[in-house]
């Protein structure tokens, strides 16, 4: 480049020199030109090197696989809604931090009466919704009443079932009266479905969400992106957002996600869709990968009311026929953690029960024979289209064949057909799905629920765990509950999904783990 430039300059100077033969300043003109060009080039280089540092970036483009359907987490279940809005636009009375612990938020403190029936919250003062409406105890009462009322369409309405009445003695005090102690109430109040919405704005939250959070909603180009901007009037001065503008872009295809990351079209994909492509980022100068944990439990639920799955020995045999590590390797490129019950290593009181029914095809065969199926049997698994499901099912199919059991795989469209067939009609034998909700071990006590699992001892534990709010006592009960499930195996417990984060090396503050599905951006910033 430089030698080429010099040649051009020299030729030009030569020509000029010929013309200006008589002018004695010719050589100095040449020098001056050279100097000028050289300076221009080096200034350009210096500028190139310094631009990013000088203009510290304050915008972020974040890629997500699934576009939310609506932007109000209090009226629809899809986790993508919370992943855009929770903690960014909307906040709760309490919140859940990166380690899964409950932290104060719009309620700065609370007291629980000794009988566990009265919760008194002290609310933050001076909090305003993005439209200027004040957040006070009346607004909080409105939000909770909306979630628990007769025509509520809150996907987690059951959270609020024990609340009998709500009092607002003054604008900064909120009192909840319960019909029975509810040990998980505070935790549940931290969920996306429990966020505080404004009495005036709630009706429009589905398309133009108005919350109290550090970011305001700006625009939603449906099918493409949601844009948020920093809330300059955020109530907590020491927790204001560091980013000025955030864009959530929706890219369904993993190949397209990888390409967008590599080209810099997006700065981060906190939940990258394809584990098999993770190694393609190895050695990338710009990007870093973080493998964290989630609450997504991949389990193969069985219809416990249907033959032969109504026989515990059969379910145990199927569990023992499966080597979880092979499933994780085959389905999710070895990224994922094996589990022995419906509980993840992040959850309070986790017990590693992967050894309760260890991989042992011989024992599995013997158990099957004992249950009356010496030659095995044939059944069908309804597998949704999400990549992990058919892949896991294929590995399981091969392993079950080893003990003489034939498993047919029937692709089942998720969510529509799956919800209808499995959840609603319970017309299935086995299915496989990742349960996204944190700490949802109580689903085995719900009636109706798709497992058709009925165990009074387990139900008792789930009742007891709500009667105490002591974390130690709760952890112990959860431990007992895990043991029951690991022994009864109403579902085959396979693995917890990893959180596959890929983002720019200069980006700081994104959560590496996901104790609750979210993209909390409050503390995210660009490093100089």
């Amino acid at each position, binding site marked *: 480049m430089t030698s080429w430039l010099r040649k051009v300059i020299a030729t030009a100077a030569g020509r000029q020199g010929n013309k200006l033969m008589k002018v004695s300043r010719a050589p100095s003109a040449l020098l001056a030109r050279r100097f000028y060009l050289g300076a221009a080039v080096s200034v350009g280089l210096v500028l190139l090197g310094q631009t990013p540092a000088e203009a510290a970036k304050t915008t972020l483009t974040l890629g997500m696989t699934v*576009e939310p*359907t609506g932007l109000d987490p209090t009226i629809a*279940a899809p986790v993508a809604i919370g992943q855009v809005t929770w903690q960014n636009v909307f906040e709760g009375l309490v919140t859940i931090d990166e380690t899964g612990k409950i932290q104060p938020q719009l309620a700065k403190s609370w007291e629980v009466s000794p009988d566990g029936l009265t919760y008194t919250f002290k609310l933050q003062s001076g909090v305003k919704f993005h439209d200027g409406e004040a957040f006070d105890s009346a607004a909080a009462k409105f939000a909770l009443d909306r979630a628990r009322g007769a025509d509520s369409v809150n*996907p987690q*309405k059951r959270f609020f079932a024990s609340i009998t009445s709500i009092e607002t003695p003054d604008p900064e005090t909120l009192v909840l009266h319960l019909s029975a102690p509810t040990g998980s109430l505070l935790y549940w109040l931290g969920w996306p479905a429990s966020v505080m919405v404004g009495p005036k704005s709630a009706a429009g939250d*589905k398309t133009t969400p108005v919350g109290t959070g550090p970011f305001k909603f700006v625009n939603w180009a449906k099918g493409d992106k949601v844009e948020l901007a920093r809330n300059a009037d955020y109530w907590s001065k020491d927790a204001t957002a560091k980013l000025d503008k955030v864009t959530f872009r929706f890219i369904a295809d993993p190949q397209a996600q990888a390409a967008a990351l590599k080209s810099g*079209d997006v700065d981060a994909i906190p939940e990258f869709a394809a584990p098999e492509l993770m190694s393609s980022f190895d050695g990338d100068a710009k990007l870093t990968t973080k493998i964290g944990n989630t609450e997504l439990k991949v389990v193969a639920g069985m219809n416990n009311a249907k033959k032969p799955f109504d026989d515990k020995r059969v379910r145990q045999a199927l569990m023992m026929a499966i080597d979880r590590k092979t499933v994780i390797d085959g389905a999710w490129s070895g990224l994922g953690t094996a589990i022995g019950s419906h509980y993840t290593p992040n959850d309070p009181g986790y017990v590693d029960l992967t050894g309760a029914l260890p991989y042992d095809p011989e024992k599995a065969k013997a158990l099957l024979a004992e249950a009356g199926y010496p030659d095995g049997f044939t059944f069908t698994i309804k597998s949704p289209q999400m990549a992990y499901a058919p892949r896991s099912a294929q590995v399981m199919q091969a392993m079950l064949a080893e003990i003489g059991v034939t498993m047919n795989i029937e692709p089942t469209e998720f969510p529509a057909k799956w919800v209808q067939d499995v959840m609603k009609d319970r017309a299935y034998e086995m299915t496989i799905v990742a349960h996204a909700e944190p700490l949802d071990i109580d689903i085995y006590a719900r009636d109706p629920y798709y497992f058709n699992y009925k165990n009074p001892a387990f139900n008792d534990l789930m009742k007891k765990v709500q009667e105490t709010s002591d974390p130690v006592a709760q952890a112990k009960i959860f431990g007992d509950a895990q043991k029951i499930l690991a022994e009864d195996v109403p579902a085959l417990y396979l693995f917890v999904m990893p959180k596959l984060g890929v983002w720019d090396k200069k980006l700081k503050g994104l959560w590496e783990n996901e104790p609750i599905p979210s993209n909390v951006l409050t503390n995210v910033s660009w490093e100089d």
Partner: protein
Amino acid sequence: MITLLSRRLVGLIVTLAVVSLLIFAVMDLLPGDQASIMLGTSAAPETLASLRHELGLDQPLLWRYGEWLAGVFRGNLGQSYTYGVPVAGLILERLAVTLPLALMAIMLSVAIAIPLGALAAAHRGGLPDAVASIFSQMGIAVAGFWVALLLIMLFSTALGWMPAGGFPGWNAGFLPALKALLMPAVALAFPQAAVLTRVTRSAVLETLHEDFTRTALAKGLSKRRVLWRHSVPNALVPVLTILGLQFTFLVAGAVLVENVFNLPGLGRLAYQALSQRDIIVMQDVILLFAGLVIVMNFIVDLSYLAIDPRLRKGI
């Protein structure tokens, strides 16, 4: 002219009525409903019931169809269950992607197919003919979305020349938007161009044996001039017919290609509406697709008149 127009119009209305009723019935028969999809796995039956009531899903099917139809006649396409906004706005946003995409694809396929087909005919058995034959064989055999994946692998992942997907929006400037549509348009155009090349080749071959061609040659015109001035224009009627038919495939192809390239177009909207069981959006999009195809065929009919003076006499 008037009879042609009115016949077309009646055909349009009847077709749309049948299509919309069919879609409504099929969507209703599909397992799963909007409410259970929105509320997920933890929803209690009474919560589901309230949402169904809120969305009007507890009304009988024919009643809902009637309401939707009445709305359409008043120019109100209804609300999307999923997005909670009027469908008309959604469709307009998406048209800004799909319409330019379809036009680019048509222009590309015409620009490739007509010269290639004509040359193949003129040099029958020669090199251009072989090239055209290989091209059309491949184009017909290979699906558009597969071409799309190959294009992404080559131009986006390996070479990094093109965005892998997504659409910056027309606000981001004309060129970036056009760039985002180029590869999808190529993927869409490829199979179309293949079919069109074949049709052009055989249509031009036919006209090359016509008397007027011989006369033109006898008159002393060059072979090239005869081909482009006389043979190709006379071969355009069958080519246009196929082009009109292909528009239907273009619309269907857009559903796949838009999904591969992550383009927020109508095809993607249709796909999302189907998986979310958003009946109203589905209805409106299908109605629009059906309407577009019918209008396109009408335009093709009119263009026969433009290219063939003989047809004008009868009207």
